[in-house]
């Protein structure tokens, strides 16, 4: 099992346990005498998560014991997420968060412009004309579509 997979299973296992022990009892009322407690379904889901991730972790452990050191190192080195994919995840998340912040601080137009221009830059666009024209065209197009064609408002 690659390392990322093991980490994900471990995180989900810990999440399931903490959901059962802390999150669900704290943030969901027990229903106060109702036939079915509001906690029942989320609790059942958490149990399923704990059992399944526990099973996956246990199976991995058993497989590791049976494997040679070389085979173990080989299986672990087959990572499922590359460094460039992690970088892309971080960059897009940062861009979206910055756009939301700008939306709240300066308004929808500026948030939209940052989102479009930032996405262009991340996609490899370097032409200044395209970097200026695309946000203008897209925001104007959205304005016409929603305010004039569909007759509804966005913001």
């Amino acid at each position: 099992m690659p390392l990322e997979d093991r980490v994900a299973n471990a995180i989900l296992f810990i999440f399931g346990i903490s959901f059962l022990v802390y999150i669900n009892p704290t943030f969901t009322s027990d229903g106060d005498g109702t036939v079915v407690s509001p906690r029942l379904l989320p609790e059942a889901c958490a149990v399923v998560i704990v059992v399944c991730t526990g099973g996956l972790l246990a199976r991995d452990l058993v497989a590791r014991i049976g494997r040679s050191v070389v085979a173990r190192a080989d299986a672990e080195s087959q990572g499922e997420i590359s460094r460039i994919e992690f970088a892309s995840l971080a960059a897009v998340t940062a861009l979206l968060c910055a756009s939301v912040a700008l939306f709240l601080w300066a308004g929808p137009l500026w948030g939209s412009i940052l989102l479009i221009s930032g996405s262009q830059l991340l996609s490899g666009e370097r032409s200044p004309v395209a970097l200026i024209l695309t946000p203008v065209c897209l925001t104007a197009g959205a304005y016409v579509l929603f305010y004039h064609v569909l007759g509804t408002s966005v913001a």
Partner: protein
Amino acid sequence: MDTLLSGFEMALQPDTVFWIVAGVTLGYIVGVLPGLGKGAATAIAIPLTFYIPPLAALAFLIGIAKGSTAGSAVSAILLNTPGEPSSAPTALDGYPLARQGKSQKALKMGLFASVIGDFSTTILLIFLAAPLARFSTLIGPLELTSILLFSLTFIAGVSGGSLAKGIISGAIGIMVSCIGFEIETATPRLTFGFLELYEGISLVPVAIGMLATSEMMLQIANRADIDRQTRMIVQEDDPKDRKLSWRDWRACLPAIFRGTVIGGIVGILPGLGSSVASFLSYGLTRRVAKDPSRFGKGALEGVAAAESADNAVVPASFIPLFAIGIPGSVIAAILIGAFVIHGITPGPLIFQDHGDLMNGIYASMIVASLALLVIGYVGQRIFSQIARVPLRWIIPTVMFLCAIGAYLQGDGIFGVQIMIIFGILGFFSRKLDYSFVTFLIGFVIGPAFELSLRQSIALTGGDVTALFTHPIALVFTLATVAFVALFGIATARKSALRKTQEIT
């Protein structure tokens, strides 16, 4: 038949035809855009119908639903970004076909399969809805609970490489659907003090995040490869690969027939939806194929199976809506709102109180199927041009539309924040094989599952032996247990074989 002919008289009025064509065209365009599915399109268009007569308004919305269901295949095939979860299996083989320079062929088969599936179940709807209203009492809460449980387990098994991971995804989906006011006590559940969460989390930002945003993250990472492949499509686009041969039809017709039947059945069963149908159809077609290893690498039957089932669900899901008043899909749920706006309550009495309107709706649905074929075929070349557009033009547009969709359907900027969170989760679920489809289906059926589970417990007092007095529920429960056991045995055998190979 006479009543249906009178319906055609109403449906073929110029203004009604205009709204049907407008709906299908708008739906097709929206469907092509990744992240903007039929639910979002129909919901956005509802305010437009305030000033239109009821038949034209409902025909317009149904046209959008049909158009966007078929259109979502275009983005799935060309961009590997399904317009909605139900088109995900279309992308599995449609995208490799596009990469091989056979996008036209895949798009044509997707369109024909969509129209056949859609048209067939529209006929099914016309013949079944009214008689079915009499038998609506057969599916009780216990039956519904077991059917939903079986569907989720089955999808968990077939949609990814690991049943355990699929089940985990489904459980997380149901868990997320529990956020918001609890249905019985009306107390906030898992809201963590955020007022925005009291109403629960809207499907659209979650789906956009899981499907479109996460896909954009991966496409940005792999843009150099994808752009190179896009250039290769242009070079390899052979005229022979654009046409559907008789051999293609002979290979795909059984898949289309299978998909239509599955879509019809799944659509009738409330709560399952088109994702279940398209994955079931795709999985079954792969299973019965002579060479299953072709699937995922560009098998045309995969596109036919998924699209016929996906589109067959839309009219079929109106059967429980019209007959019992229960929405069989997200789109049916949104349509309830449109019916109510025009003073009509869907349910068994609709045929009695609004018989003429129902005939008009049936006829409009047939006209919409034909419009779908014409618009899809004529516009296909225009839509397929997207494949030649470099990623640096597509990604900003998609990201912008994703943000707009999440904003509109997800309580303003909060929807965009939800989209970001589920975009990150979608990224990891894609990379680590935690089925995002099972997650989304779990999320969508979560409320219905909880309601039926509660009703079942209240009815039986928690007595499991009550299952024996409900044969339908018993069959589905046993099927769930058998499926898990069989899948578990298969996995154990596979890992034992792998271990043996490692040793030798």
